[in-house]
């Protein structure tokens, strides 16, 4: 409870940071607009002095933010439609499955060509291309999360909504969106982290004979790597880490703390995530006044508007609805058919060496990904279990590990490569290190979570029967963390395939370093505008990832959820 009598000055002081933040945001938007609407400049000089970094960081942050909101809108629409329309669902969900397994870079040529053609004279065109590219790396897992949340709303809540005749809007705002919130927040964090990971690829690329680059942190790092400027690389990496940590503290922590109210729990949890920033926002008079004159009336008006519309009798609504749906469906089908035909024609242009490259690359990347997973497992399983079994230790290590994990591996890559080249390893080892850097965290966090959920009584049973250390692992630890381990491996495996496009092919010191692999094939095809090769390699990768998911992971999931589930 806030004290009733409060000096106005204290209230103002408390609100000051918020008001300043709003003004800063406004200014940033203004300067961004000026830049985006300016004339095209695809060859800006990327300055390597540290003074340029704040501006670059702002540009990159803006791109990721816009891409994120775009993802959010698409996610809500796509997820809503897929969850509510059974006919659309049958088509949308497999499509999502496929899209998710296509690496970001493969979207590059079509997206860029389309965007530049759409807005040829303004910087906005290229910018939009870059944003859409980041978007393609963010949107799919968010959509999956919203879709599955909406499909899993408890029956009685749905019935309550139905029996009290909620309009679609009220149902969406008061039931479906809140129910999806926790999963959506979690996946949003993952998505934005993914955005940072692929930032370098999304801000600087070659499209045919055009060398496109956009001012930003990603292109800064890429340029620094090209120039072999270690000092600049370190500056860039530090800036990125700083931005990410600040985002985490200023945005994600408060959102996570706030989203706790959407948990479907019957009793209040003992430990609730907290955020001082959220407390500040909640106590702010300025914000609550702003909300009282904007959000509250708007919410009220929208709720009443849709309620009245819902209550009004709607004669022959069914009759009007059908043709539109049919036309839309047929149009979508025709479009799909056209795309498939075009794709087949494009694939027909593949030459024999292309096929060999794809086949060889697939094999190499497959081995590389599996080796990475094995290596990651080898160190994360013992370390994760060790930490997870000791609550005090995990309380200390978790935040550190989280910061470490938030540093995009791609940003570190130049440093790693520099080091490896100095000691005599090449990109062959480098790519594995990069994949490892990118994927090990998923595993570690999941294993810690799994190990800390092992019930004490089971541990005590093992102690009472004096099980040897090997037996401890065989009988208790490994089976108990199996479901968590699996989740970690699935995420890590998908991530590793996707990351191979940046790990196997790198512009460094003014030259291109690459190794045999499917990712390298895709990157090279993008660079040289060999669309048929790009398509062929992409289809191969997507098909492989989907197949592995279906054949291996999904079966293991069934096993995990039946045999190895620790029921409370």
């Amino acid at each position: 409870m806030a004290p009733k009598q409060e000096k106005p000055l204290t209230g103002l002081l408390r609100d000051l940071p918020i008001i300043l933040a709003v003004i800063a945001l406004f200014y940033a938007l203004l300067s961004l607009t000026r830049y985006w609407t300016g004339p095209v400049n695809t060859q800006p000089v990327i300055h390597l002095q540290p003074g340029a970094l704040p501006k670059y960081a702002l540009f990159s942050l803006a791109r990721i933010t816009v891409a994120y909101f775009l993802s959010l809108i698409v996610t809500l629409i796509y997820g809503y439609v897929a969850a509510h329309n059974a006919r659309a669902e049958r088509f949308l969900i497999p499509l999502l499955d496929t899209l998710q397994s296509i690496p970001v870079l493969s979207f590059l040529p079509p997206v860029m060509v389309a965007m530049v053609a759409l807005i040829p004279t303004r910087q906005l065109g290229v910018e939009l291309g870059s944003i859409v590219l980041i978007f393609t790396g963010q949107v799919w897992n968010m959509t999956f999360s919203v879709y599955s949340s909406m499909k899993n709303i408890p029956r009685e809540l749905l019935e309550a909504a139905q029996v009290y005749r909620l309009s679609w809007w009220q149902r969406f705002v008061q039931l479906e969106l809140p129910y999806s919130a926790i999963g959506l927040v979690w996946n949003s964090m993952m998505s934005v982290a993914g955005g940072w990971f692929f930032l370098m690829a999304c801000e600087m690329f070659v499209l045919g004979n055009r060398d496109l680059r956009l001012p930003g942190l990603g292109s800064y790092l890429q340029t620094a790597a090209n120039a072999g400027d270690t000092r600049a690389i370190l500056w860039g990496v530090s800036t990125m880490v700083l931005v990410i940590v600040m985002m985490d503290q200023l945005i994600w922590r408060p959102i996570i703390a706030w989203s706790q109210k959407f948990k479907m729990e019957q009793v209040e949890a003992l430990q609730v995530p907290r955020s001082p920033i959220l407390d500040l926002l909640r106590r702010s008079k300025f914000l609550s006044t702003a909300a009282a004159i904007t959000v509250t009336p708007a919410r009220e008006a929208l709720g009443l508007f849709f309620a009245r519309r819902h209550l009004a009798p709607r004669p022959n609504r069914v009759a009007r609805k059908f043709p539109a749906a049919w036309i839309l469906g047929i149009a979508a089908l025709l479009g799909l058919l056209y795309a498939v035909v075009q794709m087949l024609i494009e694939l027909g242009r593949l030459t024999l060496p292309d096929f060999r490259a794809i086949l060889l690359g697939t094999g190499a990347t497959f081995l590389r990904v599996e080796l990475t997973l094995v290596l990651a497992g080898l160190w994360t399983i013992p370390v994760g279990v060790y930490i997870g079994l000791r609550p005090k230790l995990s309380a200390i290590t978790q935040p550190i590990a989280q910061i470490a994990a938030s540093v995009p591996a791609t940003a570190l890559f130049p440093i790693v490569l520099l080091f490896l080249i100095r000691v005599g390893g090449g990109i062959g080892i480098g790519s594995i290190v990069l994949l490892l850097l990118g994927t090990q965290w998923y595993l570690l966090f999941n294993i810690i979570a799994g190990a800390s959920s092992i019930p004490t009584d089971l541990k005590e049973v093992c102690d009472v029967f004096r099980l040897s250390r090997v037996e401890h692992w065989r009988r208790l630890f490994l089976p108990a963390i199996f479901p968590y381990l699996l989740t970690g491996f699935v995420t890590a495996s998908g991530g590793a395939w996707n990351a191979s496009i940046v790990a196997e092919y790198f512009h460094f010191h003014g030259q291109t370093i690459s190794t045999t692999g499917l990712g390298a094939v895709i990157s090279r095809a993008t660079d040289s505008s060999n669309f048929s090769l790009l398509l062929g390699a992409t289809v191969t990768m997507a098909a492989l990832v989907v197949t592995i998911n279906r054949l291996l992971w999904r079966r293991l999931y069934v096993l995990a959820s039946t045999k190895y589930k620790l029921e409370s």
Partner: protein
Amino acid sequence: MNPPAADKLRASLSQGNWDRALTQLERLDPQVAADLFMSIPFEDQEVLFRQMPVEFAATLAGIFPYYHTYVLLHSRPVDELNAIVDKMSPAARMQFIDELPAEAWQRLMNELQTPHDAAAAAAPELAAPAIPHAPLEAPIIEARHIEKRFQRPDGTSIQVIAPTDLAVEPGIIIALLGPSGSGKSTLLRMLTGLAPTSAGEVLWHGKPVAECAPNVAIVFQSFALFPWLTVLENVEVPLVARAMEHPERHRRAIQSLASVGLTGFENAYPKELSGGMKQRVGFARALAVEPEILFMDEPFSALDVLTAENLRGELLELWLGKKIPTRSIFLVTHNIEEAVLLADRIIVLGRNPAKIRADFRVPLAQPRERNSAEFLLYVDYIYKLMTQPQLEAGPPVPGETKVPYQVLPHARRGTIAGLLELLGDRGGKEDLYRIADELHLEVDDLLPIVEAAVLLAFAKSDKGDVEITPEGKAFAEADISTRKRLFRDAALSHVTLLQQMHSALANKSDHTMSLEFFRDLLREHFPDAEVQRQIETALNWGRYADLFTYHADSDRLSLDELGVGARDH
């Protein structure tokens, strides 16, 4: 027999001196008097009984065989009949009512509830079928021949609710009572329009439910509150949906919360409240819309005993004090006592497929005493109904000649043994509701155990009692290994599914078989959820009886070598 007394009585009767005959009888020991009374011609009995003082008539009625009491009672006007039954000693009344066939019971109950009006006093005819209560006002809901079928993947369908007629009239609390899985909730959802009917129609004031968007509210077992909204916002949800604007909406929600005693909790979140408080919010939300009928789907099942009792009392108080802005309450429950405690009318549902087994009034005055004789009569009767599935087997429906497959009651074999031991301790026979009371089991939990014991021929169930059989007694007294053998014998001679499993395994050369085969077999007869439960029960029994072992990894059954060995010896 008392010869001189008999002679004197006959003399009085032959002279037509009824008063003297009565005095003579009253002077005798009641048992002797009853015997004597039974020995005179029936016409004389009727005349004499009609003139008997109420107390004496009640004493004798408690001694006669039930059919005799029943007929004689009907020689008197209804109000006197009422008084006589009232005056009978509780034990005698219980026994009398207990022994009556269901139809006679229902008829008697209907008569007992009828207000003392002259028309009803006219001599009733025994052959007339049981009269369901006659609704006084036009019903709000009328369900005509509604049924529910679930489609199976192969195109055929399983009937879960048989064609049912049901009317909900204003001014009363109706309880829909039935074992779990009997389709109570489905029926409720069809009445509210939440779930479509597979056939038949539900009319609200004569209009199909789909067209008229009825003003209903449901109180859910799981409360179904939105955890991210405060108590007040939760109550406002249906009001927003009705496009009610802010000040008025707020006022109505606060008022509704106040009526269930939640003032001061407006800004709390549901997870901060106890179960009982949450359900109060559920009530407040339901009452806020002033529903024409308030539906409740097991509203007290998720609460602990005391909280539930408290909440029931408050609900009843609100209802009786006409503080609930609703015309009727429709309560779905599996708790017999709850139904008898609250309802003015009880509908008992049978299962596989669900159909109405009984529909009667409970004319007891509120508040009702749980331990009163009348209360227990109703409880006992409902137990009787629910334990005798064959009681009201309707005429076979043409086109559905398929012999029904034996349904395994979902009881773990350990609980069956427990019941038999208890019965053994009690001298072999006991009233069901007493067992339920003593073990703190709801009928829902107890019935499957009793049914299982009956299926295995370890017990007999009759008119709300369970009685142990010699086999059951042997089982209860046996040691562990003998029990296994006895259970195995009983299972193989009485349980169709286990017989099929065992013979299929025995006849296969490798003595193993996929469990899926038997699931397929059952899918012919049951919906998927029921198939799952049938299989679970069969596994529980079959493994205990050493009929087979089940390998969860490969989902296969194989003949138990130990079991085979044991049998060969």
